[in-house]
């Protein structure tokens, strides 16, 4: 029944349209504009979470991507100053099914539409995002342009051309674009109802976090376990990292192709491993650890993006429901013998975690810090601290 390929006839904008999603393959989805009046190009991906759109949009791992939300009511709880994972959203734009409504939550400070505008993010609503999900599921994530034109004027061929010309995420290093420019320290802890975020008083350990596009909640989770965190840029060398005399090193999540970061990230991580400083990686950090160990990564057909992803911990047999956002994965067969596969996705069997048998290092592909998503895997941060304890002979 799908009849979306006959898009050529729809280049002329219908009278009511104020926004569109234009795909490189020719398809155009007309809708109403939300957010900033501009256009943006990126890879179109879908996210199936029913809550946490503000966290998702501010997750730096979405750099270079246009997020199509499968849940129809996005904007239902508005936005607030707390639920952000970075100051400036790295995502390029949003595609929504329903209209953005007025917020329905006691913490809401600003409607989503205004918030998108203030962050210069364009979006389109009124689109059958389920149809887009099915399209990505069956044909992979396409390049596309989201355009919000309040005047109803569109140059579709030009936008399509932009989409076609966009090089895609394969081979793209986006970490350098979203990483911090300066080193800074972090002591904010997790959010609690009625209290907001806390502050770490007395640090037990000092952790250096390499920021490839870190979500703030990772830093908060580290602080919660008693770690003072020093955040360094993605391109920090081993010396830059070790200079801070860390008790442990953390490799953050981030956007883009992990292989494209290898020329700077691998030597740095290798240097840390050589000194046997305990190391923990998440998402892109997991992929970089795998690359450092001599493994390979590959682009996935459709990626994992949602808050309902089951992961099995092979060491305990337990299943965690996890939050995920990745389009690349580690090829387990490429890992050396000294790396043990610890977690797998129960959706498609892809690798979700590894552990070094000869060094104090482990990493996971998914997001134990959640935000948004289930907190089932928060224990991994404790595991990291335990590892530091052990390395200190405690």
């Amino acid at each position, binding site marked *: 029944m799908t009849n979306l390929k006959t898009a050529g006839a729809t280049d002329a904008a*219908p009278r009511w349209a104020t926004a569109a999603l234009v795909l490189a393959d020719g398809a155009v989805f007309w809708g109403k504009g939300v957010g900033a009046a501009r256009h943006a190009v990126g890879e179109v991906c879908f996210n199936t979470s029913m809550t946490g759109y503000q966290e998702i949009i501010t997750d730096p791992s979405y750099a270079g991507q246009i997020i199509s939300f*499968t849940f129809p009511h996005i904007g239902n709880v508005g936005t607030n100053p707390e639920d952000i994972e970075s100051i400036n959203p790295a995502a390029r734009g949003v595609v929504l099914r*329903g209209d953005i409504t007025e917020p329905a939550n006691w913490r809401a400070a600003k409607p989503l539409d205004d918030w998108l505008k203030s962050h210069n993010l364009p979006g389109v609503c009124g689109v059958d995002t*389920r149809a887009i999900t099915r399209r990505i599921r069956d044909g992979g994530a396409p390049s596309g342009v989201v355009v919000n034109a309040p005047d109803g004027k569109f140059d579709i061929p030009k936008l399509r051309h932009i989409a076609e010309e966009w090089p895609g995420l394969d081979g793209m290093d986006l970490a350098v674009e979203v990483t911090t420019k300066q080193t800074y320290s972090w002591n904010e802890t997790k959010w609690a109802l009625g209290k907001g975020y806390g502050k770490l008083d007395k640090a037990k350990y000092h952790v250096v976090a390499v920021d490839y596009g870190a979500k703030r909640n990772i830093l908060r989770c580290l602080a919660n376990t008693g770690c003072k965190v020093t955040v360094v840029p993605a391109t920090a060398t081993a010396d830059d990292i070790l200079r801070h005399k860390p008790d442990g090193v953390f490799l953050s999540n981030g956007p883009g192709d992990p292989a494209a970061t290898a020329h700077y990230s691998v030597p740095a991580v290798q240097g840390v491993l050589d000194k046997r400083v305990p190391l923990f990686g998440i998402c892109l950090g997991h992929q970089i650890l795998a690359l450092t160990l001599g493994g390979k990564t590959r682009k996935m057909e459709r990626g994992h993006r949602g808050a309902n992803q*089951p992961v099995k911990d092979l060491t305990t047999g337990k299943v965690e*429901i996890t939050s995920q956002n990745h389009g690349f994965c580690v090829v387990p067969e490429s890992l050396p013998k000294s790396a043990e596969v610890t977690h797998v996705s129960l*959706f498609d069997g892809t690798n979700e975690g590894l552990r070094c048998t000869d060094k104090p290092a482990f990493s996971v592909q998914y997001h134990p810090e959640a935000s948004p998503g289930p907190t089932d895997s928060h224990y991994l941060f404790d595991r990291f601290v335990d590892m530091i304890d052990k390395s200190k002979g405690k």
Partner: protein
Amino acid sequence: MPKRTDIKSILVIGAGPIVIGQACEFDYSGVQACKALKDEGYRVILVNSNPATIMTDPGLADATYVEPITPDMVARIIEKERPDAVLPTMGGQTALNTAMALHRDGRLKKFKVELIGANAEAIDKAEDRLLFREAMTKIGLECPKSEVVHNREEAINAIEHIGLPAIIRPSFTLGGTGGGIAYNRDEYFDIVQGGIDASPVGEVLVEESVLGWKEYEMEVVRDRRDNCIIICSIENVDPMGIHTGDSVTVAPALTLTDKEYQIMRDASIACLREIGVDTGGSNVQFAVDPASGRMVVIEMNPRVSRSSALASKATGFPIAKVAARLAVGYTLDELLNDITGTTPASFEPTIDYVVTKMPRFAFEKFPGAEALLTTSMKSVGEAMSIGRTFQESLQKALRSMETGLTGLNEIEIAGAPDKSAVVGALARPTPDRVLVIAQAFRHGLSVEEIAHASKYEPWFLRQIEQLVKIEAEVRAKGLPKDAKEFIDLKKKGFSDERLGELTGQSAAAVAKKRRAMGIRPVFKRIDTCAAEFASRTPYLYSCYEGDGLRPAECEAEPTDRRKVIILGGGPNRIGQGIEFDYCCVHAVYALREAGYETIMVNCNPETVSTDYDTADRLYFEPLTAEDVIELVEVERSKGELLGLIVQFGGQTPLKLAKPLEAAGIPILGTSPDAIDLAEDRERFQQLIHRLKLRQPDNGTATSQEQAIAIAERIGYPVVIRPSYVLGGRAMQIVYDREGTERYMRDAVKVSGANPVLVDSYLRDAIEVDVDALADQNQNVFVAGIMEHIEEAGIHSGDSACSLPPYSLPAKIIAEIERQTEAMAKALQVVGLMNVQFAVKGGDVYVLEVNPRASRTVPFVAKATGQPIAKFAARLMVGESLKSLHIKKAKGKHIAVKEAVFPFARFPGVDVILGPEMRSTGEVMGLDVDFGRAFAKSQLGAGSKVPVDGVVFVSVKDPDKAAMVKPVKRLVELGFKVVATGGTADHLRRHGIEAQRVNKVLEGRPHIVDLMKDGKVQLVFNTVDGSAALTDSFTLRRTALMHKIAYYTTVAGAKASVEGIAALSEGALDVAPLQSYFKTAF
């Protein structure tokens, strides 16, 4: 972890009769559990007294006991079957309470039976308010302030600490029976006392009021390795203070940020862990202060519930099936997600649509009860709807209700447009509050004003406000000329009929214009994963998508098979419940077996019919002409559609027969015209004359004058009712002219199209129900003849009955068969037919004929061992009776059906039976003689049938003579007799030692004092006329609330004496259905 091999046989306890708070959802969960356990190779033993369930079909369990679910009877089954384990979490509160009783008295231990699914300690912790509170405090979760109260003294102390308003919840009652909200001290002490009386352990919890807070529910599943998943979050649109079963609810929760949602998720899982629900599904309820986000835990159910049925249907995740497998040792990652067929069950469903559940009420059947919602559940059914957005979902839900709504229809608010009157109406938690809110917007109230008065979350209000605004625009401008604008209206869920009302044209005219613009719905799949993975399961709902420029994406993918569409019954209501779902499911089973593709359409989330693996394909859709025609056209675009079955789902699909026929859609079986003939009094009368059969004298009136003239011609008393109703809605026996006037003035709106029927009332006649099958060659098979125990004039649905008849002579039975056959032929019935007869003085009168599935079909099937609904479905697709090889059942047993009533939930309502149906469910008693079968039916229905003690007798004059014999028998059995003046005199004159007791109005101590003191075990009370009714009202209510067995008809009293006699001969034996019949059915 593989399944357990140390257990071989498992007893599954069902939920018993359908009552408010426990409906077909437990048939759905029980069926899933039995199937899953059988698939795993366990011997499944089932007990359920409800014959209208699919779970009691003999094929589903190895041994099926249709026996009362009482601790004693279940113990007897355990003794006989010696199962290794009992699964108590599938049969609602009934199963849980029964299992706990057997645990407490040591009988589970004695027979070495293990509780699986939930252990006794966990059940106790979850159900005992105090233990639950302690457990929550231990894990750092807040509960509302509360205290446990057993008496007045404790009640006084509690209120000092908690303050008013306070919520009173009795311990261990289902659906919050006997609870309430107290706003002042008088009310407080009243409700507390009522709650203590209603609680089996004489205990209530007095709780801090969180009225007006937001209410949420989480459906959690946990396995023995502590893997926990949330299946679904549910948000109540109605605020705290209204029982969740009576609230409009949506899934998923729509007004929580992720941070708040995760706190609730973590709390739900922590709750299961602390309570110790090791495996299975549970439901945790929360209240959230809308101003601060403060969250408190309200309660948890350590079992599958109504909400888990809803969550299963809303997401496609089969909670009961999975829970049953987890109970025998599997872990979530070992089980497959059925819907996708490729992913495991250990994940959290995510949905890309909005689900709305709307309760359906029956206050109109209980005059005297105030139509207000509280913490005690009152609704008798519910509809669920699915739309892409809340608005689409809400409007689909409104028209799924089948209460005549086409959307947010206008209602009248008394005193409107005066603002204070409107605000007053908004503040009252009435069943139609969504409509009151829409109307308040029409009267110009603001979101803030409405939110303040109703405590509804403003987000939902703004959505309703927008719909009201759009309606006003459509009303002003007419239907849009532009396709996109029209699609946008449809995307918001407006039905053609509603658009027609707004623009002054028929629904058909709107549909025609819509279709001319190419605007048609598309169908999306419920796939548990928001399309992330391909779904192999055609579980579909309609929505509108697209921009009018090109076709929207449709996922229906109809097949090229030969197919039959079966229309279900919609939301449960009194008169149309599980029996019709049973018939629909059997039609599906039969036609599937015969090789047809079966397609189910229904909107009731509680049912087996809406399980995605019952039929080959499932459309979860409102049963309106518009919605059904659209999906039929998609289905018949490919393959061969034989036709639709509309005769199995009760009145709901039947009403659609005409519009469907007009749309050129083939209807299988008896023609809609024949159905109409049977319903049309005039045409039917001609048929009766032609066949030379007898009817009670009758006439049809379209005005008060006509009604009076007819009544005077045929003589009082008469039975008056509107035509075209099910369940005897507004049916009354009228004794005089004033009564007729009152009825015509107050009870009905009569018009040319809606006349009333006036029948002569046959006093003391025996009523008989017959179900028959007929094929297209006009062969007829009389499947079951049921003799009612209560006399004609009491609605057949409310009357107990016996199959085979226990008093009718063979000659009469033969005559009934002859007449049934004659009518089936004359009406050219193909499929099922039900006839009601009255027998008086050797004459047989035809009361009513319905050429369709009736409420008694499952009872007949279970009592005779013949799958008559399946046979009927085969006949409807063209097979002959001969080819089905049906043999007349000849058992030595007797089956008695008894009705179950919701009177306890409606304070101020009398329990006297009449021509208007008020029962919600039924049980079957099955045994070798009438007395035993009747006794079982009474126990099954929850009556405490005494074998000794005191019988209280107070009957109207015409009944006095008939009462002597049964009361004498009771005296022989050792009963003592007390009676009111006239009755006592009469009994004494006939040699019965009856002690006289005061009527309520005769001064104290009176009969009610005696009853409250526990000095009466059995009540026989019949009354005539309204004065006597009021006089004795209190004594009947007291019997009801104190659970004293009572009978309000002579026939019922007589039957009960036979039951008591049987009981005093010794304990009742139990036997599985399979032992009564050789063949499986």
